[in-house]
């Protein structure tokens, strides 16, 4: 059957690129792929780990994706990833679902610590805040709408409004702040909910009237971190690695990696490396707090 030339050309134009592209794929010599998903807070450190590990063990490729702590845990439950990063503990319901779906218990590994700093613009004169004041600012029905309500003369902000900046409602960071600073009450409507830890700090840096919270490691010269006191009259502590580890800073949390069942094989190797000095050096480099020396075994 005589096939018209144009038809063949058109067919090739469609099929050829697909054929070529399907030849692509994993780097030569990569035998194993480990998938690591979850917390957006941890995505930078997870990715730094992946990048560095590629030099340590070139036959293993670690792929990192964000999506939030909840998404990572959900993927772990479904079995589509080996590791889930999370900036919050696993909820009991999630533990049950994992047991039901994969027949094993989740194993919780503490990979580092993070302090949630409260950021204001560097020209904002506020010297310290209490957790109660934070609640008054952020919580639904909280009394503080203006800087003067907190007794602060924010000279950088002519309109005296407090612009509240937060992470989005499905983020582990949001959950954690809500738990500690708002005592699980809801945020006020009209709070700006931004999608990334860095975006929060960037915006505070441009907005003299703003207040926001994000990981301590995201600080820039345009903002300052406010020392926090657990109660009025208590000593206000600024976020720092030491204050995080000895729990004097009120809003500090562990950073977790969850796996389903005891880790084995390449996953175990990766996790061990993560907790070892080179891995922990990366944690510090990214701006988080590494595990104190002597705690480098997979913690529970």
């Amino acid at each position, binding site marked *: 059957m005589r096939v*018209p030339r*144009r*038809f063949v050309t*058109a067919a090739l134009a*469609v*099929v050829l*690129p*697909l054929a*070529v*592209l*399907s*030849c*692509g*794929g*994993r*780097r030569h010599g990569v035998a194993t792929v480990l998938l690591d998903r979850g917390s*957006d807070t941890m*995505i*930078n450190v997870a*990715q*730094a780990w*992946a*990048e560095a590990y*590629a030099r340590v063990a070139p036959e293993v*490729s*670690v*792929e*990192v*994706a*964000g*999506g939030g702590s909840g998404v990572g845990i959900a993927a772990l439950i479904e079995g*589509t990833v080996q590791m889930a990063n999370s900036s919050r503990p696993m909820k009991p319901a999630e533990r049950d679902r994992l047991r039901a779906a994969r027949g094993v218990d989740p194993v919780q590994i503490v990979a580092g610590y993070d302090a949630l700093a409260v950021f204001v613009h560097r020209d904002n004169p506020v010297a310290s805040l209490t957790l109660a004041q934070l609640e008054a600012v952020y919580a639904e029905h909280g009394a503080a709408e203006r800087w003067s309500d907190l007794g602060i003369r924010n000279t950088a902000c002519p309109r005296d409004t407090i612009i509240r900046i937060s992470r989005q409602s499905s983020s582990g960071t949001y959950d954690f702040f809500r738990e500690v600073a708002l005592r699980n009450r809801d945020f006020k409507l009209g709070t700006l909910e*931004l*999608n*990334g*830890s*860095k*975006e929060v700090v960037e915006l505070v840096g441009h907005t003299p009237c703003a207040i926001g919270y994000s990981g301590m*490691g*995201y600080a820039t010269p345009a903002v300052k971190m406010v020392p926090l006191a657990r109660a009025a009259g208590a000593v206000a502590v600024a976020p720092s690695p030491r204050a995080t580890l000895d729990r004097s800073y009120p809003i500090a949390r562990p950073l977790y990696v969850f796996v389903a069942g005891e880790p084995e094989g390449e996953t175990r190797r990766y996790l061990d490396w993560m907790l070892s000095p080179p891995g922990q050096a990366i944690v510090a480099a*990214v*701006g988080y707090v590494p595990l104190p020396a002597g705690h480098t075994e997979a913690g529970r």
Partner: protein
Amino acid sequence: MFEATPQALRRRRQERIATSVLAAMTFATVVPLFAILGYLLVKAWPSLSISFLIEPPRDLQTHGGIWPALVGTIYLVTVSLAAAAPVGVLAAVWLNEYARDNWFTRTVNLAVINLAGVPSIVHALFGLGAFVLAAGLGQSVLAASLTLAVMTLPVIIASTREALAAVPWAFREACWNVGATRWQTIRAVVLPNAISGVLTGVILQVSRAAGESAPILFTGAVMYKAVEKGDLLPYGLNESVMALATHLYNLVTQINGAPESLQFATATVLVGVVLLVNSTAIVLRVVLRTRRKW
């Protein structure tokens, strides 16, 4: 005797004012493009270089280049085009050349128009539900490309139809009169004459597919993939990718410590790719129009 009356003078003044206002309005719609391009280039300058294009990102993506994202975008665009172009062109051929004017055709028309208007985020939801989950493709080039294909399909259909409709009726009649079948007519005469319009429409959708981030956000684009410098085929079709549009989004919202010029450079490359593709379509359209036989 030929002095202008007060009314005529007023009308002429109105005309001058109107012309100036309209010209100003047009100017206001035209200037932004240049202002934006200029601003992007100026802010991006410190980071722009050849190595920026072919190197992968490093140091937590605060330095280095955008190669994985560039390649990823090419992957996505190629696969989505391979899926959408044949289906779209053939659908338009059917609608314009074969279909009779009945309720079914009108429904198809309405469907195409609506598909074109669906917000990109709804396409993303669909892609998630259909390709990632139901079809089991997971977060992959295939899932993301198919989502992009469904998004670009209706516009390819619409522009192909326009191109086909522009071919004079007489051409078709001449073919039928010498005994050609409908398909022979289309293949030998109609399509070749409509090719410039068809190609233009397809190429414009290429640029759109390259620039969209919402449809690929949860269907295949991820934040980080380890890719060697200059690796031309780094991704398998069932793997997730980095893409220029989502990479820019991550740089702006998540990645900490990157110099501002890096963000601007990424934006510049993205805009550059898109404008390059669009300009190709425009040039093609102009060149092929001069070769038209009617």
